[in-house]
């Protein structure tokens, strides 16, 4: 296996991902330890506070923010970065999406599942609606079930802590592992969980979509004047955010899904894809 196949084209991104994994995941988990957590749950959880509480929306939100203050701060920081610079957390630092992508690269392409036929934004926000309001509606609570922010740290910690292995050996743990394996490790690009099921990704995608309307924000953008419509970038995109409709000559980018990984920019033979402000 060549190094470009293993690490993609933007190699510095993998150094960031590895740094993110070291900082957030067991056994080192330096950042969770600063607030007294040993994994990505509890105060560090960046997802659970998004759920509407059955005890009352406002009081529940306040209670969630108090309980998961670090996760709330993390998501707020991510959204600010995304607004100005694109989804650098998701593509460069997230230890969970990074781990699924990195492990996925070790799995032969012939065993990979393509999810590209799924209209990711539609699916994602349908799922996200249930994630946020399911408990409030009385339809059930997704919360920690099958959560990749639980499964990946527990998987990384299981050789060191028997408590993690005990969770992964339950039906709930195994179902979570199966979900992450199918939509992460065995997904083409390794990012189907990120693209379809991650609630942080859903919020972050929305921030990216809205902020991309402002020309002063830095995003991965396509210069339609230079695009030759070869479709090379479409095949490299991990989150199937690039499409080349038959009716058009150029590739179209879905900013709700684009994670700013810049793999497409590196693959473009015409130099039509760039990272930066909108060109006049």
């Amino acid at each position, binding site marked *: 296996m060549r190094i470009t196949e293993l690490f993609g084209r933007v190699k510095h991104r993998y150094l960031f991902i590895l740094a993110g994994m070291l900082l957030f995941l*067991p*056994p*080192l*988990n*330096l950042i969770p*330890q*600063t607030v*007294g957590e*040993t*994994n990505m749950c*509890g105060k560090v959880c960046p997802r*659970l506070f998004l759920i509407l509480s059955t005890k009352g929306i406002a009081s529940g939100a306040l209670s969630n923010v108090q309980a998961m203050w670090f996760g709330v701060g993390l998501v707020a920081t991510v959204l600010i970065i995304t607004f100005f610079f694109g989804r650098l957390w998701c593509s460069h630092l997230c230890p969970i999406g990074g781990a699924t992508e990195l492990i996925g690269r070790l799995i032969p392409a012939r065993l990979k599942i393509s999810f590209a036929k*799924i*209209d990711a934004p*539609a*699916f*994602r*926000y*349908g*799922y*996200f*609606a*249930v*994630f946020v309001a*399911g*408990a409030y509606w009385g*339809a*059930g*609570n*997704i*919360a*920690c*079930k*099958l959560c990749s922010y639980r499964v990946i740290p527990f998987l990384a*910690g299981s050789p*060191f*802590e*028997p*408590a*993690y292995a*005990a*969770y992964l*050996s*339950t*039906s*709930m*743990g195994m*179902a979570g592992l199966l979900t992450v394996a199918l939509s992460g490790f065995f997904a083409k690009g390794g990012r189907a969980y990120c693209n*379809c*099921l991650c609630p942080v990704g859903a919020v972050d995608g929305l921030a990216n979509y809205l902020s991309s309307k402002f020309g002063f924000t830095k995003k991965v953008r396509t210069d339609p004047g230079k695009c030759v419509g070869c479709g090379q970038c479409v095949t490299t995109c991990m989150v199937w955010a690039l499409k080349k409709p038959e009716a058009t000559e150029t590739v179209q980018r879905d900013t709700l899904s684009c994670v700013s990984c810049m793999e497409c920019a590196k693959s473009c033979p015409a130099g039509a894809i760039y990272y930066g402000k909108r060109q006049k």
Partner: protein
Amino acid sequence: MAFIAAGVLVGLLFARFTAADYVHASLTLQEGGETKPLYISHGEGKRTMALSVKNMQDAPEVRISVDGGSIKSSQPPPIAFPFRQWLSIKDDIFGGLKRGMKIPLSIVLDGKREAYELLFVRVADNSVIQRVPIVRGESHAHH
């Protein structure tokens, strides 16, 4: 529209998903405090409970035990940085406890009994702080 519906459907499937052998629960450890039972599902087979205990008592060392089961914790972390004080665990004695601290427990029960008892004992004088029954029934804490 079809994919929005598919997302909602998968969300509902996830939300309704339960595992008979796993439950998440929480408990406040307080001397003389009200003790509500913890629930595990009916049926045979190993049961794992992720129990988040909020320590509201003052003993620095507590023995935590359950007959017919074993107790594990995700603390201390494998590589513990010195800027934080963690629990120290030796056999079934949990040390380094402070009031307000969270004690994450993973309780694995053999599933052969109808009921269990989780026992918290102050190590200094061997007195019982709290007895928590674990019984069969519908769990009310699902996350």
